[in-house]
């Protein structure tokens, strides 16, 4: 395995999450939800973020209620704050003390640059939440309107992260089977959550070998846009501008990781959050509610139910089992709905009979819960083959970049509704197993060869770095 030199670039240079010292009330609600205790300050005083500890998960951004009031005196004008935060000037929503960096302006500029060929991908969690920003009920499922809006914004290709999630299952499922059958490092952890990856790098670098070498779906999509996608669309890769819409703020950090350039260019040029996409849509004067259903471009946008459930805790595991079961036993899994892996915040464990093998799995959501498993590994008591870890409370649908509810009492409802919509979407899709995706099959046949093959290894797998 060739060693690439990977440079360690942290958040200090380009912080994703910051706290506005003029607005912070020191109420400490963010401190209570920070999974890595990266927020410091006395009660009643403005808080600061330890960027060396921060994993940019954005839960503080979601909970912060210290808004800039028109009655506050002695604070910088709204225009100045909006410029500091990289917000479009048309944004009207209130500003809060804890905020993430804004990249909407870069996307707007790229869309109006006729020299660029813009490709966009949206995470599974975006389509069960974006409509909330337009007044629809919490958790409304609107993939068609989402695709239509992206088309109307002017993206040349409306591709999808869910397609890449299906690819991730092919790679990661194969990797798991390889580790299990050849005595590789177990348990294997999922690596699609960038906050989780940064956490391992800075807290348990000695356990990095446990992480799957697979890139996240976002990064797999990005690198495929500028290689396979360039071929399919007959575009020069240097002209491709790769945009990703995520429920996650840490994905902004992930796309800037120096090693994420296996296409020969920045695999993902810019990440914007669900909220930023809604702001772009409003800025362009598009009436989201009035849009007719749109479609994704098939080559890199066709997806199965297995891909879309990546957005909820237990979803990656369920997708992996639907495919892994068939890869090992050569038979289809009897029931596609693996309710025993689904659930809420915490640690869930299960044993799954796959042919002669009893696969022991765990699903962790809420990064603080991951520490339990890590300590078990160090103590030698961890008895799992495969562990899925998601930093945010119920998975990506509860991510730091998702629409932010106004009332605390609506938060659990937003989680429950977005989760339910994700499974409804999965249940109603014609294809529900990643390996059945014809676009994925074509990708391998025409371009990649085989999972874990030479091309896959070069483009779709990565290495990690110690940040201790």
């Amino acid at each position, binding site marked *: 395995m060739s060693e690439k030199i990977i440079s360690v670039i942290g958040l200090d240079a380009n912080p994703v999450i910051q706290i506005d010292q003029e607005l912070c009330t020191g109420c400490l609600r963010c401190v209570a939800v920070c999974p890595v205790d990266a927020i410091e300050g006395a009660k009643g005083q403005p808080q600061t973020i330890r960027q060396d500890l921060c994993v940019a998960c954005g839960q503080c951004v979601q909970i912060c209620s210290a808004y800039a009031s028109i009655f506050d005196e002695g604070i910088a004008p709204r225009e100045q704050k909006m410029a500091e935060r990289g917000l479009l000037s048309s944004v009207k929503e209130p500003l809060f003390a804890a905020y993430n960096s804004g990249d909407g302006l870069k996307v707007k500029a790229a869309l109006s640059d006729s020299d660029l060929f813009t490709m966009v991908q949206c995470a599974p969690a975006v389509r069960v939440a974006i409509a909330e920003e337009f007044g629809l009920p919490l958790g409304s499922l609107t993939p068609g309107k989402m695709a239509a809006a992206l088309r109307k914004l002017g993206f040349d290709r409306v591709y999808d992260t869910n397609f890449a999630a299906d690819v991730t299952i092919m790679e990661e499922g194969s990797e798991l089977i390889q580790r299990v059958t050849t005595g590789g490092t177990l348990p294997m952890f999922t690596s699609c959550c960038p906050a989780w990856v940064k956490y391992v790098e800075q807290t348990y670098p000695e356990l990095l070998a446990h992480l799957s070498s697979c890139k996240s779906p976002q990064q797999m999509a990005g690198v495929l846009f500028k290689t396979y996608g360039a071929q399919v669309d007959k575009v020069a890769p240097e002209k491709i501008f790769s945009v990703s819409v995520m429920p996650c703020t840490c994905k902004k950090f992930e796309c800037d990781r120096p090693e994420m350039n296996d296409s020969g260019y920045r695999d993902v040029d810019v990440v914007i959050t669900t909220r930023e996409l809604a702001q772009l849509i409003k800025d362009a004067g598009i009436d989201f509610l009035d849009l007719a259903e749109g479609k994704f471009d098939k080559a890199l946008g066709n997806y199965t139910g297995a891909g879309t459930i990546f957005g909820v805790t237990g979803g990656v595991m369920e997708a992996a089992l639907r495919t892994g079961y068939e890869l090992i036993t050569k038979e289809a899994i009897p029931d596609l709905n693996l309710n025993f892996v689904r659930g809420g915040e915490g640690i869930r464990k299960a044993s799954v009979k796959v042919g002669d093998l009893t696969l022991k799995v765990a699903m962790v959501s809420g990064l603080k819960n991951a520490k339990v498993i890590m300590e078990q590994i160090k103590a030698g008591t961890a008895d799992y083959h495969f562990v899925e870890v998601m930093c945010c409370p119920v998975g990506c649908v509860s991510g730091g970049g998702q*629409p932010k509810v106004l009332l605390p009492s609506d938060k659990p409802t937003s989680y429950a509704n977005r989760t339910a919509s994700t499974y409804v979407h999965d249940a109603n899709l014609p294809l529900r197993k990643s390996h059945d995706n014809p676009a994925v099959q074509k990708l391998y046949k025409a371009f990649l060869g085989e999972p874990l093959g030479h091309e896959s290894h070069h483009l779709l797998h990565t290495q990690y770095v110690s940040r201790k």
Partner: protein
Amino acid sequence: MERLLPFVIADSEKCTGCRVCEIACHAYHHVVGKTIGTVIEPIVPKLYVQRNGRGAAPVQCHQCEGAPCAWACVPQAIYFDRGRVMVDTTRCDSCRDCIEACPFGAIQLVPDGETSLVGNKCDLCLGREQGPVCVAQCPSQALRLINPPKEKRTKNRQAAENGKYLVRK
């Protein structure tokens, strides 16, 4: 109707100054969706979180029995309705005398549409069956809707229970 007008008070020991009450107040009184992204006007609450070095608490209308704001209002836009002191914004002429009159600063003048300013004060969420939304949403349960006669009687009872300790033979 209550004998004395109820009102919301804050426990400054519990209040963290987080401003959820202000956001919830605005959300109840304006047409918004469930998320921040649906808020298109500046947040204009009817209670105002104050912070000094030692603690925090929101200030809001005491629903005074002899409401000085109503006395001061020349167009008589402030009156009592269904157990609370209300502002009839159609009669308000933005003269600001109510702001001068209120010793708590509980009444404000806020934008109403593009061109006018009108009186704005706590209305105990008239129309909300479960009562004031600030009380319901406070993450620290620092706010309470109090019924003054009931508060008084509770304290009388407590004082009476302690009464036996005060007398000597």
